[in-house]
């Protein structure tokens, strides 16, 4: 069901003027599992991270945590993330909307050099939010909620891009 959320988020980001976006599915990146970190960089993934001014991470919550595959993919880059904005979207089958996975990702984001925003996306009872067969959104309230999240993300992305390009340490 997280795929439905990711596609919905993508569709909302694509409506923003002046914003280019793409969906990266960690399942399709096929990182090897006999090593980890920057030793197993994917040129495609790293190039996308270099191009990006901001990331939206859509993740399901499993046992209060994030999928190992997501962490495995994130660990393959570092300099590509530094001083870029990130917004977190949690997805859960239950009522908590992935709040625990969002909280657990925060220290990871910080160590990667990403800058988190104070809006999150929380998709609770996700099987009731999207039609499981078609992926159609069944609750329009999420459009308004995501608008607030994306406004903050774009603001942070602009500020950080200005900083990366013009403000020196």
């Amino acid at each position, binding site marked *: 069901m997280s795929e439905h959320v990711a596609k919905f988020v993508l569709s909302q980001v694509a409506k923003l003027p002046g914003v280019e976006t793409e969906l990266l599915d960690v399942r399709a990146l096929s990182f090897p599992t006999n090593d980890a970190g920057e030793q197993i960089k994917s040129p495609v993934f790293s190039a996308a991270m270099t191009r990006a001014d901001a990331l939206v991470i859509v993740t399901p919550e499993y046992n209060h945590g994030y999928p190992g595959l997501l962490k495995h993919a994130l660990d393959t880059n570092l300099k590509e993330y*530094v*001083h870029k904005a990130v917004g977190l979207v949690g997805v859960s089958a239950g009522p908590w909307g992935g709040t625990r996975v969002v909280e657990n990702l925060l220290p990871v984001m910080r160590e990667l050099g990403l800058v988190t925003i104070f809006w999150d996306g929380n998709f609770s009872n996700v099987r009731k939010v999207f039609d499981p067969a078609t992926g159609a959104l069944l609750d329009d309230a999420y459009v308004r909620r995501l608008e607030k999240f994306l406004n903050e993300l774009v603001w942070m992305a602009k500020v950080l891009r200005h900083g*990366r*390009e013009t403000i020196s*340490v």
Partner: protein
Amino acid sequence: MNERARVRCPGCGAEMNCHAEKLDPQRAADDPAADPALDGVVLEIHTCPVCKFVLEREAR
């Protein structure tokens, strides 16, 4: 802020901006580039304002 030599972008030749320093503690043990006070190697992150190339190098 430290004044440091500007790095030229290897992609387009524009002057890059050093906007971050990050400690790599995994290279502390026997790396000659390690800063003993920080117990790791300080890496500079440079971004090209023209083509967005990102460069990482040891701090000098």
